[in-house]
Structures are given as C-alpha cells and as structure tokens.
C-alpha cells in the first residue's frame, strides 16, 4: 500500500519571521480548540460526573447527588442490553447494505458516468436538501399498510393479507441504510475517482482479467473510501434513534431511544449518561479494532 503515500512536497522551509512562526499554529488551532473545549470537553466532563450520581430517596424529580456509584454502569447495561446489542446489529446490517448499494453506484459514477457525473453526484447529495426527519416520516407513508409498496405486494399470490412493513426491523434497517447512504457513497466515490486508470491498464497488461483487476487493484485502492464510508455510516447509525422511533415499534428500539427516554421522560440523568458513555466506549473500541484490522490507520 506504499504507493498510496504520494510524495507530496514538504520542502517549503521556514520563510517567515520567528514571531509569526511561533504564533500562527496556535492561532490556526484556536477556533477548533475553543469549539472542542466548549462543546465536547465540558459536556464530557459533565456527563462523566452525572453518570455516577444517585437520586436520594424522596428528592425532587431531576435531583441527583454525586456518590461515585460506578455500579450505575452495570445497572444501566444490564437493564438495556437487549436494545444495546440490537443497535449494533442494526447498524452493522445498515452498513453492509449501504456498502452493497453504494459501491456499484460510486464505481459507476467514478468510471462510467462520463458527462453525467456531476448530475449523478448532485442526485446523491439531493436528499440532504430536505430534512432528515421529514424524509423518515415520508417512509412511513411509503411503507404504510395502505401505501404503494404493501398494496402492490399484496397483489402477489403468496403474500398474506396481514403483511406489513412499518413497525418492523426491516423498516428500521432500511431507514438507516437510506439515511446514511450518501455518507457511504461520497467517500467511496472520492477514493475510486482518484485511482489512476494506468494502474488498471497495467493490470491488464499483466494478463489479469477484469475480475482479478477489480479484486487486486480497484478494491485495495478504494479501501480508504470503504473504511471512511463504513465508519461514517456505522457510528451515527449505532446511536440513531429517529429511525427506530418513527419506523419501528416497541420491539425494535435502539440504544438511542433508551437514552432519549431516560433523559427526557424518566429524568434519570445518571442512567442516560452511563449509557452514552458505554456507547461511546464501545464504538471507540470497535472502530480501533476495525482500523487496526484493515491496516488503514495511516490513511484515515
């Protein structure tokens, strides 16, 4: 994979004065750092502190005191492991489906679209022009019992009258796949588009057939896109609650729904915080293992 490191020239020496040299990096970092500290570090500290709090018996709703009760994590996990495991299964299924749909699409746009390339790219991004929520609600109409899909399927002889699509795991996973598809397609397209056609020609010159060329040249070269796309799909999908809330039913709830319910409905901030932390930690571990395994840590 060495050839991925295109030697970009880093020869430009320090031309400017010492003063600007010492300040510029900090000034450039400042906006990002301030942003991160305000909206990431502070909330994380607050969340960590909340996660070990306890509600005193008889106290007002939403009152919690710090008792460093780390067992909150165990309780929260045990009470919600079903939704927790389900979230990762759904996210993984959605990621695999999105990859299966996006790869041919990105391949086509990168290599075969010719003058339609820009139009196709706009079409991939087009769903973003309307709200995420509205698009998901639209799915309930499309998949509804009296919607076009179910009505059409019911015309088939082997489809039962009680057939339905909404409030099923199928609807939730489909919604997740659909909503995160552009996040899979765009990085794939970016990495496929960068492939030098001469490498493909060289493969042919070395008597590789089309399939071997795809397997040994195209796929490895597009791997950074695959990794970026799967991460951009899997991470938000695992924490998503909109699709499960709108397209699912009580048996398809994901961990995001539980966190939302603990936070807003039950006003049980410690459990919500503990679950958020567990989710973050699990995603972090999975992502680290994944990047290690795909040997692309230097690429992303």
């Amino acid at each position, binding site marked *: 994979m060495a050839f991925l490191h295109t030697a970009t020239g880093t020869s430009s020496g320090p031309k400017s004065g010492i003063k600007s040299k010492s300040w510029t990096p900090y000034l450039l970092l400042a906006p990002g750092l301030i942003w991160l500290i305000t909206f990431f570090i502070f909330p994380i500290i607050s969340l960590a502190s909340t996660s070990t709090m306890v509600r005193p018996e008889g106290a007002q709703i939403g*009152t*919690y*005191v710090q008792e460093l009760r780390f067992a909150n994590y165990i309780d929260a996990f045990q009470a919600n492991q079903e*939704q927790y495991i389900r979230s990762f299964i759904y996210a993984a299924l959605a990621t695999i489906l999105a990859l299966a749909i996006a790869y041919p699409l990105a391949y086509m746009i990168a290599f075969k679209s010719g003058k339609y390339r820009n139009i196709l790219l706009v079409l991939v991004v087009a769903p973003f022009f309307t709200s995420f929520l509205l698009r998901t609600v639209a799915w309930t109409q499309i998949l509804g019992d009296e919607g076009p899909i179910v009505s059409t399927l019911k015309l088939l002889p082997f489809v039962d009258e*009680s057939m339905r699509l909404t409030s099923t795991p199928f609807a939730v996973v489909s919604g997740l796949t659909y909503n995160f598809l552009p996040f899979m397609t765009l990085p794939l397209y970016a990495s496929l588009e960068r492939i030098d056609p001469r490498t493909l020609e060289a493969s042919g010159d070395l008597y590789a057939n089309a399939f071997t060329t795809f397997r040994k040249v195209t796929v490895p070269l597009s791997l950074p896109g695959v990794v970026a796309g799967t991460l951009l799909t899997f991470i938000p999908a695992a924490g998503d609650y909109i699709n499960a809330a709108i397209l699912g*039913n009580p*048996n398809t709830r994901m961990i995001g*729904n539980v966190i939302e319910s603990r936070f*807003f*409905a039950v006003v049980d901030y410690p459990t919500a915080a503990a679950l958020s932390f567990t989710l973050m930690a699990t995603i972090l571990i999975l992502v680290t293992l994944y990047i290690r395994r795909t040997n692309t840590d230097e690429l992303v």
Partner: protein
Amino acid sequence: MKRDIESLAPETRALIRAQLTRRSLLVGAGAVVGAGTLAACGTGGSETEGAGIVDVSDTEKIVRWANWPLYLDFDEDAKVYPTLQQFESATGITVTYTEDIDDNNSFYGKVQGQLAIGSDIGYDIVTPTDWMAARFIEQGYAQELDAANIPNKGNIREVLANVGFDPGRNYSLTWQSGFAGFGWNVQKIPKGVRTMEDLFAPANKGRVVVLSELRDTIGVILQYQGVDPSGPFTEDQYMNAIDFLKGKIADGFIRKVRGNSYSEDLVNGDAVAVIGWSGDLFILKSENDGKFDFAIPESGGTLWSDNMLVPSTSTHKKNAELLMNHYYDPAVAAEVAAYVNYICPVEAAQPELEKIDPELAASPFIFPDAETLSKVKVFRALTADEQTNFQAAFDEAIGN
C-alpha cells in the same frame, strides 16, 4: 436535598445544575473560583421567585407564549390568530405565539436548566399538562398570579377551580382540557370501540396504537382493571396495568406507542383503533368526512388539562395575566373552542358558541355534562419517587 448538595465537592456541585436556584448556583460557582475554600451556605428548596426578576410589563409591551400545536383558533386565509389579534389591538401588547411544546417531558428537559439558574427561557406563558404544571409549581418555576389583573378568572369551570396541585388556582389557569379514550376507523370497525375487548378484538391485531403518555394509556387500562387512577392505587396495581400493556405489545396487538403522531397512523391505515385524545379525533373526523370517531371507554377514560403558567424567569407577568384574562372572556373562549374542539374551561362560553356553531355547543366533549364527567378520572398526583419509578416502568414496557 440541601444538605446533600453541600456535602459534595465544589466542582461537582457546580455541575449539578438541576434544582439549584440562582443564588446557590452562584455560591457553587464562587466556590470553584475560590478553589473550594468558600464555606457554601447554599439556599436549598425552591425559592426562585423574586431572585432578581422585576416585572417590566408596563415598559415592554410584549408577551411570549409557548403552546402546543393546533391549539389556538387560526385563520387559514389571513394566516393570523384572530383572538390574539383582538388582544393585541385592545391592549397594545405584542404577542409572540409559538407552538413550541410538543411533549411535556422534552419541553421540561429543554427549559429546566435555564429555570434552575434563573436565566430567561424566552417565554412568559407556558402551557404544560396538569402533572407537569404540578412539577413547575412544586419546584418553584411558576410565579404566583395576581388575581386583580385577571377579573375573568371567576369564569373558570367549577371542577377546574380547585385542583390538587394548585388549590384556588394561584399559579395556573386551565387552557383547555380533553379526554383520553378510544378512537377508531369507522369503515374498518363499523360497530365502534367501547370496551377494551373491542379495542383488542382479534381483527385489530397489529393495528392498535396507544399513547406514549403514561397517564392516559395506563389510566385507561387501570380503569379496565377496576382500579381508580384518581384514587390511592398501589404500586402493585400500577404494575398490573404495565403487565397488561407489555402483554399486548408482546402479542403483537399493539403496533406502536406514540405521541401526537398516532393521528398519522390512523390516516395512513397503520392503525384502525387507538387510545387517543378527544379533540384530535374530532378534528380528524371533520377533516375525513366522518371516517373516524371517539368514545369514552365504558370502563372509564381520563380527563386531563393543559395549564397556563408564568415561568419563574418571566419579566412580563402582568402582560401574561392580561392575556389569560382575555381568554377567560366567554366570547373569546367560545371562538377558541370552535376551533380546537377540546373542553372549554369557561362554562359561560356555551351560549356564545351557540351563536358560532350550535352543533358544537351541544357536544358533551366541549361542554361536558355531569354524566360525561362521571365517566372520566383525573390521574392522581404522583410523588417524585413514584413518578421516577412508574415512568421508568412504563418506558421499559414500551421498549425504551
């Protein structure tokens, strides 16, 4: 509670925004700055009123109101709220009306942090449901109303004048009330839904949707099980109702547990029968040529109200009171009732509504008679511990 907070490390104390009053929070923050050397003398309890809040109603002629969607008479053609316009031209006060409350819990979650530290939440009137109104009052997040500014207050329906969470209505006034009961699709279920057996008839399997509002869904189930939700029912009795709900979800009878959006499920056919709210179903009925209907369950339904409150951070209390007074004028109340179809809190509005729409004025769901009221119960107030445990059990039952 006061002692508990004081026993904490100062850093942590500053992080517990919940329940802290402005003063005690400042003490907490000061302690952080002073590296924990400050002996904190926090002010526990729920004393927020008067903490730097000055009523500037006379100089700032504005009032900002957060209400639920589709809950005020709206003129589709002119895109205005006629009764609000009347108020504005009569008083010279500009009203900012927003449909910002979609759910009691998430609204509370949104504003509670600011209420706790006494910073303006951006509303001078909020409209939470009874139990949430009770929480606002109990936690000191509502200002006491000045009856002198609300002479129409006496028009309030008798059953609403003295409620458990606010005897004498010193902090709140009812906006509208409604029933929770059974709603159904008349084409699919011509004989209607009047009992729990009708709701969970085999033909409805997988096409029943119930409310995600604990007090309505469980309130209806409790009465089916012969327990009065307004009485001192026990935790065991409550959990029996939860088990019933769980069973119907596990059997696949209940398809979804939803908030306001159950009406979409009825319209698109995903649901044929629901536990829903009276006003919604009457609006659906009139919009869909009588395709839907509503009935209070034979075993009993629930009665709930949404209440206007002035949040503790508002600096326009007098303007808010004048607005409340406006809506307790019978003629104005009748105009609202004609649009929203919920129970009108002003009984004297009935003759006024007769002038607008005689049929509506006769509806027992807008001006309920004693017989209708005898079939519904108000879910009793829950203690903080009960609220936490019961809500958690309910949310677990519905999959969260």
